């Protein structure tokens, strides 16, 4: 039995033949797995070597080097807030503090774990819209302590509904 679904197997095979070497397919395959399952599970790493012949050391090397791969089960919504130079000057600290507060509040009120996580990340390449954040793949610009409540509560409310 494969640890991968049929559609993912097709995609993996596509990547394996797409580049000059099989090894180049590791990064895109890991992205694909993360898109499909939300994160990269230990059995995926093993499965890639057992089922597709990608050496486990090579796959692990990539999975651990790059910061955008998630190797632990994530929250449903992952907020990546830019805390670099420009976003800092434009108010990232207070917006992030607000999100942290909302997460704590949610957990206190509902007794449930928050579906939203918060992490600071380096410059997102959108400093003209600072402060900036990503929620999964969606980009939000000019996120300040004044409007962040409205954005993040959408994700929290969905879980408490």
């Amino acid at each position, binding site marked *: 039995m494969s640890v991968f679904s049929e559609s993912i197997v097709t995609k993996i095979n596509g990547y394996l033949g797409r580049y000059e070497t099989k090894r180049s397919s590791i990064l895109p395959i890991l*992205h694909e797995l993360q898109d499909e399952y939300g994160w990269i599970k230990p059995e995926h790493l093993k499965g890639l070597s057992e089922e597709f012949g990608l050496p486990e050391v*090579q796959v692990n090397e990539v999975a651990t080097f790059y910061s955008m791969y998630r190797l632990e089960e994530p929250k449903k919504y992952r907020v990546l807030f830019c805390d670099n130079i420009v976003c*800092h*000057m434009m108010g990232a600290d207070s917006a992030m503090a607000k999100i942290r507060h909302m997460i704590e509040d949610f957990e206190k009120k509902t007794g449930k774990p928050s579906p939203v996580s918060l992490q600071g990340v380096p410059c*997102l390449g959108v*400093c003209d819209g600072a402060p900036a954040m990503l929620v999964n793949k969606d980009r939000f610009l000019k996120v300040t302590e004044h409007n962040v409540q409205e954005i993040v509560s959408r994700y929290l409310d969905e879980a408490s509904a």
Partner: protein
Amino acid sequence: MGNTTDKVKILTAFEGIANSRALATYQNHGGYEALKKALTMAPGDLIEIVKNSGIRGRGGAGFPAGLKWSFVPKAEGQKFLVCNNDEGEPGTFKDRYICELSPHMLIEGMAIAAYAIGAQKAYIYTRCEFYEEIAWLETAIKEAYSAGFLGKNIFGTAFSLEMDHYSGSGAYICGEETGLLSSLEGKKGQPKLKPPFPAVSGYLGKPTVVNNTETLASVPWIINNGADAYRAIGTEKAAGTKLFCISGPVQRPGVYELPLGYSFEKLLYEDAGGMLPGHTLKACIPGGASAPVLLPDELKGLTLDYESIAAKGSMLGSGAVMIIDTNTSMVRLMEIIANFFHHESCGQCTPCREGTGWIANIMHEIVSGHAKEEDVDRLAVIAKNMGGKTICALSDAAAMPTMAIVQKFGDELKAYIRKGKAS
């Protein structure tokens, strides 16, 4: 030859045009004519044109593009062209703008470059956080294939080119060209010692030219209009236009295409509309986080070109002009810069790995109120010992802004230490 510092729209020619990303729009405005023309010329002549245009790499180092192309061995064989669309230098968001406005301008520039250097395969390597931009690029590549601008026998010539897109995964070091190539090979994005340079031994050990997105997107205009026309823009030593990303507490942050040699004050006060109300200029980092900070006095009369900024002890870098206001604590700013480089150091070289770690530690001590005034001088000593002995330029990139902040804002750092907080 008369140089002009009047504005010319090359990279931003599609600003304000509806559906600017679509192939049809691009073609309605003369798109892919430069490629058609280029394919009637000898590759060596194209390299000469790009050399004579004077265009220098827009990724940060400013290396002459035509010269780099000429280093690729002329012998037949597998060769690659790679577009560095990693855009990780803090403060930089210009390559994103090219993806947003005119992905076909980049693809056309890449096809011309690939033909000039004899590459049969080209990659665009983009940071994965640019989700939307990547989708636009992938769409544009597909469109270019369907129209016959990529693939076999382009414009009925013997030239064939395959192009693919590749996503990074959150590592600043993959913006460094040899780190990028390691990543493209499916490895950790660790830089390699140069020489050999990628033009001789790059992706999979084959000759590979790595150029920044902005560099490559400038190529169609150069081929259409000629080297002299490009050289007439900018200054004697810095030809052409450059995308400047101005950010921070200014009225109109954004990307501005300006001739090199343009006035800094015009960019800040006219194009970007000046400071936001209630904000006062304290300093400016003119070329990304790696560039040493400049004081208001040093900014007076400054022109935006490689030589003028270098003369002030900083660098034009990627063209990321970060405006810093008096509400900003240089202690916190230095802490952010220190954490960034420490986090992004790949750890291969001791001076970089240890140096960035020590600087980050000291900054943490300062911010949390546990440092002594002597620690500020220690920052400078550590930074001085990080330069010139490493595989890539990240170590220097971390050391230079540190030295500048200590030199120019040492008093602010010490005052913070005495009080245990910002004044």
